[in-house]
Each structure stands twice: as C-alpha cells, then as structure tokens.
C-alpha cells in the first residue's frame, strides 16, 4: 500500500507555473491584437513589391469587389458616429440611436444612403448576402462616394485614403473612383496590395 501511494504522488505535476505562463501569453495576445474583422465581400488584392505598411488609425478605406461594388469606412467608433450623423444630415435621412450605434460597429459599409436605414436593421447573418450590399453609387449623376470621402475628411483632416480592390476589378470602376477623388482634390492615396509571393528579382 504505501509503495503504491508514493508512485501516485510522483505523477502530480504542479501546473501553477504553466498556468501562469499560459495566461501571461494570453494577456499579451489580447493586448497586442486587433481582431480581424470580416469584410462584407471577399477581396483578393493584387501583389506588389512595395513594403510600406499601412497605419491602422487615421485611415479611410475604399473597398472594391470584383463586380465593382464600392464600400467605404473609416476607423474609430466615435468618428464613425460623427460621420453617419453628418451624412444623415446631408441627405436628410433620420436614423435612430440604435441604428447609429449599429453603424459605428461596421468597418466598411456599402449601400446607397437611402438604403442605409434598412441595412442597419438587418440581422448580422443577412448582411453578408450580396443582395443586401448594393455598393455606394459613384456615377456622375449620383456620386455618393464623393460625399462620404468629403465628410470623412471634414471629421479627420489627417486621414489617408486606402483603396483596397480585388485584382480582377475592371479598370473602369477604379477609374470612376479615381476621378471622383480627383474632383474633390484628393490626389494622394494608397493602394493596398499583398506581398509578392516567391520574391522575384
């Protein structure tokens, strides 16, 4: 009996130290991370050799998917709140507290401003449906992207514009976006790319 007991005792490992390490690492990851947010559309960016990193703050993102739908978003929840309020004012639409709150949680959104209210009332699962993401109009008759960018610029003067487009987007869509930006004197912007695979020399 006593022998068995000794043997059993010896398998007891003190997990306290390991637990400490685990939670230390956990804390590190929580503090350093920024969670990957799901974008409403899947965008596969083209590759380039450029190694400039994009900042995470002071940025407005223009997301373009393959079919040419345009999405727009800025960083910071408080800024988003200001943005949506101003936009609502400019286009004369009324949004409730809850809807504004919903908007501040979105990284990017892509709908004509008229359809924004309905979109914000959708359930999360339904938002991914392509039928519910119509894209921001960038036509010459109704160019809402221009208003979005202009309004975002009023809120944050230092922000940069980043265009993240799918590699198969037709150039005609990009041209329309570039033209719109040109018209409001936004001549410097960033194109988001991914690092070239298999470094060519």
């Amino acid at each position: 009996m006593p022998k068995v007991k000794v043997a059993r005792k010896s398998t007891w490992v003190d997990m306290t130290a390991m637990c400490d390490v685990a939670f230390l690492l956990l804390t590190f990851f929580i503090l350093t991370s920024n969670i990957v947010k799901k974008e409403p559309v899947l965008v596969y960016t083209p590759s380039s050799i450029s190694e400039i990193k994009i900042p995470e703050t002071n940025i407005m993102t223009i997301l373009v998917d393959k079919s040419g739908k345009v999405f727009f978003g800025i960083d910071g929840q408080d800024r988003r709140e200001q943005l949506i309020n101003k936009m609502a004012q400019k286009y004369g639409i009324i949004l409730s507290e809850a809807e504004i709150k919903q908007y501040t949680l979105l990284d990017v959104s892509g709908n004509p401003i008229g359809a924004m209210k309905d979109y914000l009332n959708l359930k999360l699962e339904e938002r991914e449906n392509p039928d519910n993401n119509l894209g921001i109009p960038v036509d010459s008759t109704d160019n809402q992207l221009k208003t979005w960018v202009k309004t975002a610029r009023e809120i944050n003067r230092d922000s940069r514009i980043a265009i993240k487009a799918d590699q198969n987007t037709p150039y005609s869509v990009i041209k329309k976006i570039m033209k719109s930006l040109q018209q409001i004197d936004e001549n410097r912007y960033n194109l988001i790319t991914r690092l070239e695979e298999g470094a060519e020399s």
Partner: protein
Amino acid sequence: MADISSDSGSHKKGGKKRSKKAPTRIDFTPMVDLGFLLITFFMLATSLIKQQTMEITMPSDKKVSEENQTVAKASQAVTLILAKNDKVFYYFGQSENAEIVETNYSNSGLRTMLLKKNYEIAKQVEDLKVEKVKTKMADEIYQKRLSEIKAGKNAPVVRIMATDDASYKNLVDALDEMNISSISRYAVVDVDSADMQLIRGKIN
C-alpha cells in the same frame, strides 16, 4: 478533475489521520487547458501582419500654370497601354507614327524594356544600394540621394494608359514595374482616341 486533493480515497478504515495536512492543493490542469485554448483563439483571430500598401499620387485636375508644367521631351516619353487579357502595348515618343510593340508583364517583357530605357538611373540606384550596405548609410541620407538620382535629367517619363477592359491587377503590376525599375516620373492618364486607334487592330 479540479480536485482538492485532501483525503478522498485515502481514507481507509483505521488509516492514519494525516489528512488534515495540506488540504488545499488545486489541480490547475483544466485552467491551463483553458488558457491555451484562449491563446489559440487569439492567435488565429488576430492579424499581426499589417497590410502592404503602395503610395500613388495622381495629377490634380486643376489647370497647371504654364511655367509649372513639366514638358517631357519626346525622346524620354514612354507610353504604356494596358489592354484586356493582360496585354500591354508600348511605344516611345509621340503617338504619331509611333511603332507600337506588344509585350507582357513578365520579367523579360515590360521590365526589361523599362530597365533598358532607364538604364543609367537604375544602375546608379543599384550602386547606391550597395554603398548603403557597405557604409551603413543613414536612412534619411539614402532616401534623399535616391530621390535625387531618380529625378535625374534623363529619366524617362512614363504615361500609363489603362483601357476600360484592363483589370486592376494590370494597373498595380504596371505601377509596381515603375518601382522596380526606379522610375519616379510616371502618371496614370486616360486613353485618348488616337491611342485607341493604335491598338485597335491588335486587341481581340
């Protein structure tokens, strides 16, 4: 699990009463499990890598006053026309009587042409890079000298014309080639009808 290993089980009839010692030993194994599970989750859910970006400055559409306008010499001008199905055409000088050549985005296509055109500057940039490594040059000085070299007199001026059928990838590839071949003077411009004429027969 999570047993407070005091005496459970060890109490046999008439056993020694040693159970009162060390009653509060907690098994941390489940907690460690939990900890690592959460770590795994955070590692997968986070993006430590920032996105790459490429900076681009477009010409303003405001009218530029006569003296500020940079007039490119015809001998330095290169025009790229990006067409559909990943085709690229280029010609030197002006569009009248230009000899139009078809090429592609590969190493031996566009890049070779641009490097040849920009030979002097590309060579100087290469030398500067070597010098930087050798002398451990400060980054600021390096950047300054780099931009000096790139603004050199004989630098080619590239006009990138993308047709509506070209894809965004084509544009980024073309801009990327500018970076690779150290060309700093380039602009993305619209295709005019004269240039469309030039490539008309060649696109299908």
